[in-house]
């Protein structure tokens, strides 16, 4: 029997009972559709998070105090105060460190901010003039923190747009007005351009003050929360990381790398971590969708078993007329594969439409990977074989006389 005949005969049988065929493939449609939609959603989320991290600054390395593995005994080695402004200056001036072009020492702490009647709780970042190029921050009006502000500990502040709308209302111009932080009054000299982002990535809900002002005037500290470094290019990230790492180890007189009282992470490290997290999330969602695919497959098996029972006489007749076992198996397998495969095609179409709609709704990228569509087809055909096998074999092993007698 030719393939074309097998397929056309299978299609013929399936179109005889359209409602049942439709209901049978519905499970597969939903399964394949949700796998495609969820994988697409996961990939879009991953891409948008990566872009947001990328937007925090290109070629960024961050030095943070404390060991990589914090907690336990290790916390004692330097703790949270091991980085100082002198470290940052030394890095900037060191002739050994050739792959770094900007050094931005930073001190940040959350604090309550008040002005007139309104108040908010936000991140206060003590920054130098190098903060802006390293983190790709620009001001929409006024000026950013200057070297002179840092040198003379001026009481000025640059506000993120989120803080402006929280304190003064949407679209207000706060330049020239004042805010109070830790009992000190600061003059607002600038507002930054919105960088978007949300949660820990929100670069709009920040108040920038001169580093020295933050350390000495506002919070009374002589250490840094972090030092951000801008490498000269993407290609020298690893070299830059090593140069700075060994320089700081020497400076802190630590000979054992595992005892380091600081850690250096690159932008890529963060992206990798986040990608791994969102990847796990995507796999989890796809796993749930795959379960619905499994349930759909069991539905197909159920329908095929009903079909075999209903068509017992027909099977008996075909065997009486000379159909061998293999022919009967092929016929019923073909039917279940046609069922699941067409379910897969329809599901893929629905999945793509759903991902498109979702990407519009949450304003994310619309990503459909060809591999997920290919996988959907392969998986749906495989389900047809897997769940059609038992019913098809049951049909093939019917004894012709029993089958012909069946009422």
């Amino acid at each position: 029997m030719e393939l074309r005949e097998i397929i056309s005969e299978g299609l013929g049988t399936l179109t005889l009972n359209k409602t049942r065929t439709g209901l049978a493939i519905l499970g597969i449609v939903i399964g394949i559709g949700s796998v495609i939609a969820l994988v697409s959603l996961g990939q879009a989320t991953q891409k948008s998070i990566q872009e947001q991290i990328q937007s925090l600054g290109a070629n960024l390395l961050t030095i943070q105090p404390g060991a990589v593995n914090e907690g336990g005994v290790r916390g004692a080695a330097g703790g949270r105060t091991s980085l100082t402004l002198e470290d940052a200056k030394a890095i900037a001036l060191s002739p050994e460190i050739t792959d770094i072009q900007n050094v931005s020492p930073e001190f940040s702490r959350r604090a309550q901010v008040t002005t007139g009647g309104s108040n908010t709780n936000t991140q206060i970042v003590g920054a130098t003039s190098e903060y802006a190029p390293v983190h790709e921050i620009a001001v929409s009006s006024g000026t950013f923190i200057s070297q002179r502000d840092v040198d003379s500990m001026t009481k000025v502040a640059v506000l993120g747009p989120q803080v402006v709308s929280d304190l003064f209302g949407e679209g207000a111009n706060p330049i020239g007005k004042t805010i109070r932080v830790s009992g000190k009054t600061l003059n607002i000299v600038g507002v930054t351009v919105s960088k978007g982002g949300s949660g820990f990535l929100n670069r709009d809900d920040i108040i920038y003050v001169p580093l020295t002002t933050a350390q000495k005037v506002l919070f009374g500290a002589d250490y840094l929360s972090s030092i951000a470094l801008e490498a000269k290019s993407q290609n020298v990230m690893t070299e830059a990381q090593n140069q700075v790492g060994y320089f700081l180890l020497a400076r802190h007189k630590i000979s054992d790398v595992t005892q380091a009282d600081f850690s250096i992470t690159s932008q890529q490290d963060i992206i990798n971590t986040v990608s791994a997290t969102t990847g796990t999330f995507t796999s989890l969602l796809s796993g749930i969708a795959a379960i619905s695919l499994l349930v759909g497959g069991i539905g197909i098996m159920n329908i095929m078993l009903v079909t075999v029972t209903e068509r017992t006489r027909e099977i008996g007749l075909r065997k009486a007329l000379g159909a061998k076992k293999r022919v009967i198996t092929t016929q019923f397998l073909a039917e279940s594969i046609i069922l699941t495969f067409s379910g897969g095609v329809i599901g893929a179409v629905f999945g793509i439409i759903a991902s498109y709609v979702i990407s519009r709704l949450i304003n994310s990228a619309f990503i459909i990977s060809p591999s997920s569509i290919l996988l959907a087809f392969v998986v749906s055909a495989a389900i047809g074989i897997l769940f059609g096998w038992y019913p098809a074999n049951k049909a093939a092993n019917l004894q012709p006389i029993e089958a012909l007698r069946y009422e």
Partner: protein
Amino acid sequence: MDNKPIIQAKHLTKIYKTDTLETVAVDDVSFRVEKGEFVAIMGPSGSGKSTLMHILGALDKPTSGEYILDEEKVEKLTDDELADIRNRKIGFVFQAFNLLPRTTTLKNVILPMIYAGIPREEREERAKKFLKMVGLEDRMNHTSNQISGGQQQRVAIARALVLNPSIILADEPTGNIASAQAEEIMAIFQKLNDEGHTIIMITHESDIAEHAKRVIHLKDGKIFDDSSQHQQRIAKSKDSLVI
């Protein structure tokens, strides 16, 4: 004419076993059918005629005994080999017609040719030829539920003939058909037999059995009476008279 018999049944026995009960459906049956014979197998229900029919039709295997169909030993074959034997050597005509529902008569006649691996172009031509032979050339594109019982049985006969089988096995072929149409069906069988086809027919109606040249009566799984043996006996007694 070929003098080898089409069917040789030697000591065929079929025993059905359940946990507590052993039923002998066919009990040591031996007979031969020559090429061109028209045999009716008669008997009351429970006489074992259906079981015998299944064994002759290679649909079932005997518990013991030997069955040779057109020079092939059938009783030891596997399921797939039996399917092949049924396809090439036996044309079935069933009481309930057993056409594929919602399928055209043409496709019904084509079906056994698909299993025989006959090329596509040849199939339709042959199917049309045999539908014409049973007088249904104008019903080729009707589905089986759009035609009468008599017509359905004629389609079934066309389907049985299309691979030129060694024997035609008819199981109560007129059982589900109005008597006027039954006569038409029997006329077709008569004509086929005249053309040289070997026909074995199961029936419980004696007026249908009358169309056959030879009648085998079964009772309790045994051959109770075989009209050909009468003739042989008559022939033998004639011989003895001559002597």
